[in-house]
């Protein structure tokens, strides 16, 4: 992973450990996490609940402080700075709008606390309302507007003081699907227009893939992999990452030779394939590999088939069809996904013996 060298990172966490409680009830929420988030980046912390992503966000916001390790903001150590002294703002999961204030008062609150005059504030609030397209709702109470509108107010409130970094804690999880899609586009637009570094926390892999410049996949208090969405999806480094993002087929294979991050493997069927090697993966012996369902295809020509098996189930999804197979030689079920087209003729039925074709760069060797 190459880091931007010209300017300091927006946020840099170095071997950050956070332990809650003590003695028997002690919980390690973050375990020696290091990450460098670039300026103007849309960076996503992705992982299941309890993986430590929200804890890391809270450490950056200043609501909690690291047990060990440091956090730098544009080169300045902020590890133990209280939240009100950090040029960082948060969009909370349930928005946390002040119910005793109007929309305008909510948005102006940060500016007021920073000591801006009333006229300055009025102007900034007006601009923010325009930015999130809510001009007419300035004098409404926060319980008189819809969930989507509350979301926009929360965004405007956090953006108004022009923070160096905006933290978003699963801000879209309370919205319905249609609104969520809208807000995803809206968030990207806001990030683009303001040029502020966004750190986005989510457990929704699709959301992470569509919105992020880079993603850090977390589990059990650790960052497992950092990379672009494509990187993470096509080249998962660990079983957990491959499993958490998208559907995946896992196989065991014999590593024959390895060089410069690529390897030559022998599949259980005896066929040889080329594969990409994850950083830190073994370079000999039996290794775990993954093949995405859409990177494999069905074939009747035995010579092309890398694997063979018996078709167990065919599931039609409209845009594509999923074929569930039992491989010859056993193991976990293997799934092949094929795009449907008008010309596709449904001929395969469960029980058929089929061959599996694997694309050129479809195989990834895992670290574990």
């Amino acid at each position: 992973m190459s880091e931007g060298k010209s300017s300091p990172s927006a946020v840099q966490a170095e071997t950050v450990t956070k332990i809650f409680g003590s003695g028997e009830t002690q919980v390690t929420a973050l375990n020696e996490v290091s990450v460098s988030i670039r300026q103007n980046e849309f960076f996503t912390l992705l992982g299941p609940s309890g993986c430590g992503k929200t804890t890391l966000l809270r450490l950056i916001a200043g609501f909690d402080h690291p047990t060990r390790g440091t956090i730098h903001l544009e080169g300045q150590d902020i590890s133990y700075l209280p939240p009100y002294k950090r040029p960082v703002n948060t969009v909370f999961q349930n928005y946390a709008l002040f119910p005793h204030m109007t929309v305008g008062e909510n948005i102006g609150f940060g500016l007021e606390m920073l000591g801006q005059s009333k006229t300055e504030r009025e102007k900034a609030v007006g601009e923010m309302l325009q930015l999130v397209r809510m001009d007419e709702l300035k004098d409404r109470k926060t319980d008189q507007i819809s969930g989507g509108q509350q979301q926009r107010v929360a965004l405007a409130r956090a953006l108004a003081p022009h923070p160096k970094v905006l933290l978003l804690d699963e801000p879209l999880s309370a919205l319905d699907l249609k609104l969520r899609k809208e807000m995803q586009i809206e968030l990207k637009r806001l990030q683009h227009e303001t040029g502020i570094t966004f750190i986005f926390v989510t457990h929704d892999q699709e959301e992470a893939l569509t919105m992020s410049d880079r993603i850090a996949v977390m589990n059990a208090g650790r960052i497992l992999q950092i990379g672009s969405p494509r990187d993470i999806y096509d080249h998962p480094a660990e079983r957990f990452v491959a499993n958490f993002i998208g559907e995946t087929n896992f196989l065991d294979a014999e590593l024959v030779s390895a060089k410069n991050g690529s390897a030559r493997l022998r599949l259980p069927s005896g066929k040889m394939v080329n594969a990409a090697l994850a950083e830190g993966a073994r370079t000999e012996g039996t290794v775990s590999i993954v093949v995405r369902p859409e990177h494999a295809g069905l074939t009747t020509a035995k010579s092309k088939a890398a694997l063979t098996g018996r078709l167990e189930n065919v599931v039609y999804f409209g845009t594509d069809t999923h074929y569930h197979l039992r491989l010859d030689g056993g193991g976990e079920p293997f799934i092949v996904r094929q795009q449907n087209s008008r010309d596709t003729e449904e001929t395969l039925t469960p029980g058929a013996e089929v061959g599996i074709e694997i694309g050129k760069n479809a195989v990834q060797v895992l670290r574990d």
Partner: protein
Amino acid sequence: MSELAASSQISVDNAPRDAASALEAAERQEAKRRWLLLSPALVILLLAASGPLLIVLTYSFLKPGDYGGVIWQFSTEAWFNVFLQEDIFEETTTFSDAHLSIFWRSVRLSLGTTLMALLIGFPTAYFMATRPASSRDLWLFLITIPFWTNLLIRTFAIMEVIRNEGIINSILIGLGIIDTPIQMMFTDFAIMLGMLYVYLPLMVLPIYASMEKLDFRLVEAGYDLYATRWRVLKRVIFPLVKPGVIAGSILVFIPSLGAYVTPRVLGGGKNLMLGNLIELQFGQGRNWPLGAALSITLLAIVMIALLAYVRNVSRQENAHG
């Protein structure tokens, strides 16, 4: 009851044909049930509060009997004597200094008690509300313990602490910090301390109830938006728990204003409050009409204070909205 059954019968029959009238019938039935549930409380209020109040009001317009009681003759003398007094020798009418000073002391001490209760109760409630849910019940339990003991006993306990030979003075003298005991008994301070001790839970509990409902993410949002601790308290926490603060203040102020036992025991005979003055009229003073008039006056003060408070609050809320 048969009517209830009948109306429910009708609503069921009509439901498919006329949903609106069925709904109406259901609502009527609901309203009837509500009155039925309310009725015990209404009966008690009518008999135990409004009735006696009417008697008191009537007595205040009668003449005092020589040995207590009343003579059934209309008179406004009692009301005259609430604030005014006649000098029999000079035949002049002046404000009754004695009564006014007692009114003033009552209001002053009650306000002081309320303020102190707020200053102590607010942080206490905050502390309780920020404990883990599992230990909050324990704190609630501890707060209510004083209620288990009789008011008189609690007041005597305070006396034991602050009297000249009491715990505080004994310790201070024993440590050589003072030579002669500090006179705390029979002062306004003693009365306020006693009332504070007795009524503090009434301040803590409503504030705690509001505080417990407070979404502490709002507090974090405040910090996040550059508000210091003090400003988060002033701009976020306080406005949101204000209903609790108001309820607590009312619950402390009103009984303080009418307190009888505490000023009697801790204030000695000297520092009377309204409650003592009223009691005096029904006892040694043998002037029931005056006592009745004073009682009504106390009631009026409470109501005026409440109205002013409520008005003030709703005006503030309107200014916000």
